[in-house]
């Protein structure tokens, strides 16, 4: 089409420049959001110096990265489930199961096969979630809630309430050791973020998940095996949650049956704050990582403020809201538009 070979040459010339102006805008909306999330985290860290002079230091950054590692791993799986338009409420129980299996059956000697098997068990549970959603048509919310309750009961039965045993060496190494002055888990998290980003944004699987999330029916018609593909994120999410359980075991040398509870909402929030739509089909894992770091940073700074918990909570909620307002997509495009007009 661009090689115009018409006899009305003058008209073609007249509109040649119009073609140029209609070129792709080149601004990736996701990118803007991601940069903004990280920038906001950085600003928060820098501003936290006003709260306490020890904040804003390299050490604080390492603490934040270590603490956010749990959320980052967890929200990768949650993000994939949200990507296909689902929601995984079973993560708390899978965190527990992962941790329990690692402490109850794992020891220094057998960790090399017990931990992978435990992760497979978790993935299998996730697959059951996926099967319920895909085959039986149960809303993800209910299916994962139900399996969460079920798995929690099973964990209770398995342990009689008290998970015994200690952390296998390898998990303690992951969570506690330092290498070149930087915690090993920080290297791990960086690697995980890169791999996660590739899986979600660059692989064929990721592409199919986006398609399903945007338009399930169209994905089916386009020849995607929607049933199988849609179940995969649930398995990944369960495995991720199980691995978070193991990380927690390594972090504090032991498991409890409620250690996953505090990760449910933050896990979802990290995904959404990172720019993904809760309705599926959009977002990037890099954004989610940013969301997780932002939430953890916020927690660190808030806990250093010398106010009553009530006021601190109010500040925390307000900062989340302000961040969301600042991160709005149309705010950026709005600004762009205004510049154009001016």
């Amino acid at each position: 089409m661009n090689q115009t070979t018409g006899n009305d040459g003058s008209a073609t010339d007249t509109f040649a420049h119009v073609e140029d102006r209609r070129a792709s805008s080149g601004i990736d909306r996701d990118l803007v959001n991601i940069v903004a999330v990280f920038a906001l985290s950085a600003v928060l860290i820098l501003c936290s110096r006003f709260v306490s002079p020890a904040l804003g230091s390299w050490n604080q950054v390492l603490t934040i990265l270590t603490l956010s590692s749990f959320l980052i791993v967890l929200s990768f799986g949650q993000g994939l489930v949200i990507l296909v338009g689902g929601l995984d409420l079973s993560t708390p129980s899978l965190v527990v199961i992962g941790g329990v299996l690692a402490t109850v059956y794992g020891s220094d000697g057998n960790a090399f096969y017990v931990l992978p098997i435990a992760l497979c068990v978790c993935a299998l549970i996730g697959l059951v979630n996926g099967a319920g959603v895909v085959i039986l048509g149960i809303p993800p919310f209910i299916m994962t809630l139900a399996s969460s309750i079920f798995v929690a009961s099973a964990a209770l039965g398995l342990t009689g309430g008290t998970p015994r045993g200690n952390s296998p060496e390898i998990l303690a190494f992951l969570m506690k050791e330092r290498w070149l002055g930087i915690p090993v888990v920080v290297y791990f998290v960086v690697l995980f973020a890169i791999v996660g980003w590739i899986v979600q944004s660059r692989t064929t699987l990721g592409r199919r998940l986006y398609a399903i999330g945007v338009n399930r029916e169209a994905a089916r018609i386009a020849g995607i095996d929607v049933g199988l593909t849609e179940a995969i994120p649930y398995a990944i999410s369960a495995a991720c949650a199980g691995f978070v359980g193991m990380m927690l075991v390594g972090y504090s040398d032991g498991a409890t049956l409620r250690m996953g509870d505090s990760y449910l909402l933050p896990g979802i929030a990290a995904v959404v704050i990172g720019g993904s739509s809760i309705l599926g089909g959009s977002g990037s894992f890099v954004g989610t990582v940013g969301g997780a770091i932002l939430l953890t940073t916020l927690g660190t700074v808030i806990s250093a403020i010398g106010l009553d918990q009530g006021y601190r909570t109010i500040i925390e909620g307000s900062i989340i809201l302000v961040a969301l307002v600042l991160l709005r997509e149309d705010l950026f495009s709005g600004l762009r538009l205004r510049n154009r007009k001016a």
Partner: protein
Amino acid sequence: MSEARMASVECRGVSKSYGATVALEDVSISIGPGEVHALLGENGAGKSTLVKVLGGVVEPDRGTMSLTGEPYAPSSILGARRCGVAIAFQELSLLQNLTVAENLCLPKLPAAKAGLFSRGRTIEKASQILARFDLPLDPEEAVGRLSLPDRQRLEIVRAFSHGTRLLILDEPTASLSDVDWLFRLIENARKAGTAVLYISHRLAEVRSICSRATVLRNGRSIDTVDLAGADDNRIFEMMVGRSAKKTLSTHAGKPKSSGAVLSVSDLTTDILDSVSFELKEGEILGVAALEGQGQRDLFRSLVGLEKRRSGSISVDGKVADIRSPKGALASGRGMAFLPEERKTEGIFASLTTASNMTLPVVGNVASFGVVSRSRERDAAGETADVVDLARRYLPFRISDLSGGNQQKALLARTVMTGARILLLFDPTRGVDVGTKQSIYEAIRQFTEDGGSVLFYSSELPEITSLAQRCLVLYGGRIVEAFEGDAIEEQNLVGAMIGHREDSAASKGAYS
């Protein structure tokens, strides 16, 4: 001539940009009262955008409009409606979970007591509107259960019920195979003094109903012409800035070989009634039918989207148990399906055009599961050329593309799958005149290379010029099959209205 009488609607220097995309630039148009005015242009020329500006959906960056002499700057769709301006949108604007009556009366339903609306009066009002515009739909039916053509009609009727001064119809016939009903309505509106802005890529249609046409190209209004005084070539030149390609109007020869690649026997579904036919290698097989005669079911059941009750489908001589489009792609030489509804079954709105195209075969542009962007771009680019889609659209979100360009991308998707059998449901819907020729050309090339195509079209001329054989569906059954020169409008129409069938045959045909 047009300046002589007072214009009913007038736009001057209207411009609108989406980010870096200039959709409209300095567009001017004027329509007289009681005039049916055509808006012509290539896919992506800016027609729908102009429509949205006129209808108060988007605000123009620059420019002025007036309505019967008074300045007109609608701030919302309701504002436009209040001025008597209404649109039937290209991408339908109906709510599928609400009933016909509710859709017709939105956003304010007739009131009963205490601020509540009255169901009875809503139905009554809707029935009146439906009767006034001769559309026999059940007002209480949920719109989601209507067929696409019926939805299109409902969209049109809704516009008619509000558009007293300016009525805008954006590709109203895209999924209608029968236009008489619409033309009667337009004629009535015209007589009542309503200005009508009519958008269509079917030039013959435009000529039969419009007096003048404004041509848009790349977002600019090129000229307004009297249709009587402009031949197709002239219009085409104005639209694309070059002369028309040589149109191929003769049938391509007989299929090279006579081996059946797809054979369907006694296919029966809720709607189809023992349908049997064969598709040969290198063949273009057309399906002609009025709306709702089972063509949708036929295509969908072939790829496993509709349950088969009985009957078998064989690909390459082997019985294929196809349960999903994926299965269809994988069976034998592969069957790819182009669905009917662009918005709900076709596009992935937030993905790029290139991703939309490569999706079914994204594995082919990936190594070790990781998609290579350059290979994706190249692969998509090649196919984009085949369907005449400008490569610059490839990195855009597909939702930012015009309707016709979206359709091209979807067609490209089926080509990209590598399947040797294409099942195309109305492939050229909303595609501009020039591109249609390119697509016909591509289809012919595809079959000449040994591929086979089964296609349905709402445009009879398309079938007559393209198909080597043609099946006519009526009441869920194949009532006739034509071949070669017998494929001719008169014959087809005769078979399509089922004059050889008793009326009982239509039972269950309409879902």
